[in-house]
Every structure is written in C-alpha cells, then in structure tokens.
C-alpha cells in the first residue's frame, strides 16, 4: 500500500511479521512497516472477522492492534520498531496463550 522513499541503509533492522523477516528502519512505527507489506491489513475484527488496517496513525482509532512480542492488542502506530521484534496479526477474538 505504501513504499519508502529511501533505503534505510545502516539504520536498517529486522522485525518478524507472522514469522517472516521484514526490513524496517529505526525510528518508524510497526504500523508503518505493516502498511508496506503485500497484505496491507493488520488484523481481523472480533465482531465479524473483517480485515482492518491502520486508519489514523495517531492512536485514536485502535484499528492497528497487533500482537507484539507476545503482548496482544498493542497499538502498532505508537510502537517504534526494535531489532528482532516479533509481530503477529490478531484474527477475530484474541486467544490467550496456553
């Protein structure tokens, strides 16, 4: 959906989205990275399992919720990327780990 205008170069790091390694740049949000992925969507809703993607990028819409390093329902637009971060898309009602 979106593309970066420059190559991160030395500021590049790697995060994992549903297990897949993805290049990110220090300083950007997880939501920004997700919007560059081919799927575009970041979760499906608990009510009807419809796909959603970030909408406001400033923390007031709560569409960008993903699981970050096993913590669920994190607003990815307010979460700066960190090397090695593991992101998982939430589908429907959130399931709590065993």
């Amino acid at each position, binding site marked *: *959906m*979106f593309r970066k205008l420059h190559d991160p170069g030395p500021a590049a790091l790697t995060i994992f989205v549903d297990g897949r390694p993805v290049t990110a740049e220090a300083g950007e*949000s997880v939501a920004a990275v997700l919007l560059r992925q081919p799927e575009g969507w970041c979760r499906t809703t608990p009510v009807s399992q419809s796909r959603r993607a970030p909408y*406001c990028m400033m923390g007031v819409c709560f569409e960008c919720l993903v699981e970050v390093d096993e913590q669920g329902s994190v607003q990815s637009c307010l979460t700066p990327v960190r090397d090695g971060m593991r992101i998982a898309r939430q589908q429907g009602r959130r399931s709590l780990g065993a």
Partner: protein
Amino acid sequence: MTPTDTDLLIVGAGPAGMAAAVMARHCGLSVHVVDDQSEPGGQVWRAIETVAATQRAARLGAAYQVGADRAATFRSCGAIFEPQCQLWQIEPGFKAFTTRAGRAGKIGAKAIILATGAQERPAPFPGWTLPGVMTVGAAQILLKTADSVPEKPVWIAGCGPLTLLYATQLLAAGGRIAGLLDTTPRARLATALRHLPRALGRLGDLAKGLGWALALKRAGLPTVRHVCELQAEGRQRLERVCYRCDNGRSGEVAADVLLVHEGVVPNIHVPLTLGCNVSWHVDQQCFVPVLDVWGETSKQNVFVAGDGAGIGGAEVAEIRGRLAALRVASRLGMLSEDDAVAAARPEFVALARALALRPFLDALFAPRLQVFAPADETLACRCEEVTAGELRARAAEGRPGVNQLKAFTRAGMGPCQGRQCAYTMAHIIAAIQHRPVAEVGLFRMRPPLKPVTLGELASLDEQEPAR
C-alpha cells in the same frame, strides 16, 4: 508506593505542552511531561528529532522544521519527560495514573495542563473501514515518520488546509496523486469571505494556503468539486471509490488508497472524563472545553492548552501553553499575580493576532452536514460494527439518550471509547429526535482513558506497602 510528585503535570509534548513546560520551568516550577509518542513534537512536529537531521526535512516545509528548535529547548528545560507513556486516569488531588513499559505508575501533581491536541473529525461513509482507506493525517504521519508515500497514485477526498498541505508535500516528495475529490460545499468561499477583512492580518498564512492551492492546480490534478457523497468498495480491501456531487454528477474510480479529511476537532476525551464543562462550537460542530482567558477549565487547576482548547494551529498552541503555565506559576506562588499579568500581556496580544484567521478558516472549512448523516449501511461504530441504520432504529424507539443508545447497541463500547463514533451517535439521535446536537451531548466517557492491561493495573497493587 509513593507517587512521583510534581508541581505541574503536562499531558502531551506537542507545541502547547513543550511551550508550557519551558515557561513553567522558567518560573521555577517542577514539571513532569508525559506523551504516548516516543519523541516530543505532537502531530504537527511528529518525529522532528529524527527527521530534522535528514535531507527530507526540507521538503516537509519551514513550519515543520521550526519544531526542531522547540524540541531542543524543551529537552534542556529541566522538565521530567516520559515518552511512550500512556495516561489513563486523573483522580482529584491530583493523582495521575500512567502506564509505561508494562508497569503502571502514579504521579501526584498540584496542577494539570492537558495538551493532548486534536484528532481528525470522524466522517463515516460506506466502506470507510476497508484496508486502504485512511485519514490524510495518517498519510502525513507516514511521510514524516517513515518517509513513506502511497505506492500507487492516491485519491484524496475532503476539505480543509491539511488536505492541501499534504498534497503539496506528497508531490514534493515524488508521490503521485490520482485526483482530488473536493468536498467543500458550493458557495462556502462566499460565506467565508465575510471574515476576510479580519483575516487579512494574517496575509502570510493566506498566501501560504493560496500557494498550496495554486501548486496543486499547476500540477494539473483531476479535481472533482462539490463532492457530497463517498463510498469505498472492494472485497476485503479498497478497490474502488464511488462519488456523487451536489449537482447529481457521479463517478467511480479505481483506487488502492483513499485518504479522507474533514477537518480536525479537539480531543475532548480527557476534559470530559474529568468532568470539565464543555460548550458547543456551532461553526465547527464540536465540543470545546469551557476555558477562561488563561485556559483554566471549570475544574480548578486543570488547564487545556493547544488544539485541545479549540483548533488554532501551532503558533496559537504555544501561546496558550505559555499562558496556562504563567497562571499555574502564579497560582502556586512562584510568580506574583502582577508579574504573571505583565508577562501575559504580550501573549494575549499575539494570541488575538494569531487567531485572526480562524473565523475565516472555520467558516470556509465548516463541516458539511452529510458528514454527520452517513448512509444506513455505514459502520458508524467501527469497533463494535454497529451501522448507522441500527442506531437510527434504536434512537427512534422511545427517546433514548446517548448513554442508553450506547447500552442498547454497544456502539461506543469498543477500544476507541467513542473517539470515532460519539459525534456520529449524537448527530443521529439529534436528527431522529429533533433535538439540538449540543443538548444530546456525548456519552459518558469512562476510564481508563487508554487500554491498560489487567497486569498493568494489578502492578499498582503490588507497589502498595504490604498490609
């Protein structure tokens, strides 16, 4: 646990929050600032510290680059700054509850300045929840914080200065715009021109806005005027945008990303939760906190500064921040009332001058009524997926108020806590029950203001001394 104590707690490190912090520190107050972003700057100067050092700062404009200096001054003023810190409740006293890195904390403060800014006005339409539909503000944040632009030529629908500004910035960055769907109603400029004489004091700003408009015209973008209806369509993501104009003309365009903007409204959430009085701003169809000239709310020692006090832009925000800080300083005995008034005098003059353009802008970019009357199939409440049609049906049964409507339909019960749907609900009730929107009001906002986890809340108890 002993809460961290401070004289002044400032919520938000945007223009208003930073200016307030600097002034308060200058007056000798202890200051604690929290913000949910990782850097200061708010929205207008988002990511300024990271970006300022790079080449792309230039294409974001001079108004943006000003933020770098402000952030530096703020960082060195001696205030405690907690980034990535979510404030979720303020109890009288004051006791502020925050969460950071998975742990809850308490901050004790004698005075509070709320500088939480504004958000885009929710403008629901069928399909607005599809991946690919975003606000113009969101796209601008992506440009600032991730140097990202839409991959494919983007459609922009809306009305307001931010639309023009972003379009200009996007083109300057090498992004591509497929076209503009201008929702400014016909004859709106004529109405706004009433305010032009006063606005001429802000010739520089007027020229700037005109400059954006001309640049876009020169770029030869397809522009559709007086669009009054929008519909986003696609299977699981945006594929098409359908529009209709007020003269009946309609069209359909393929789209990968649609950016929408219908103005900004103050973040009223926190003042409402604190029980501050609010008043209805007729032109802008939104609530604003009731404030005295210093920015104090109806709750003693609670102030609002910045766009949260009423949309005014960065310059106005900084002035309001300084005024609130001066008042707090004199209230807490760090400054005599005379000294505070003397220091405030030039600020008041500057404020009046800076606000001169507002009536013109407010009239020009007043929200069109269709924004508040979405088609029945629209998901008025995005979180709980309640349609406008369902809200209308329930609103017509008996005469429920907005709290009852929320209870009956679940609209407003999702994580956004009404930030995207409360105004729509109020307008729907007003229309069905023939009542003024101001009287209907917004439903009762309930804490926590941010979605703290059970574990984070529990951590408050663990910090208590053993009993």
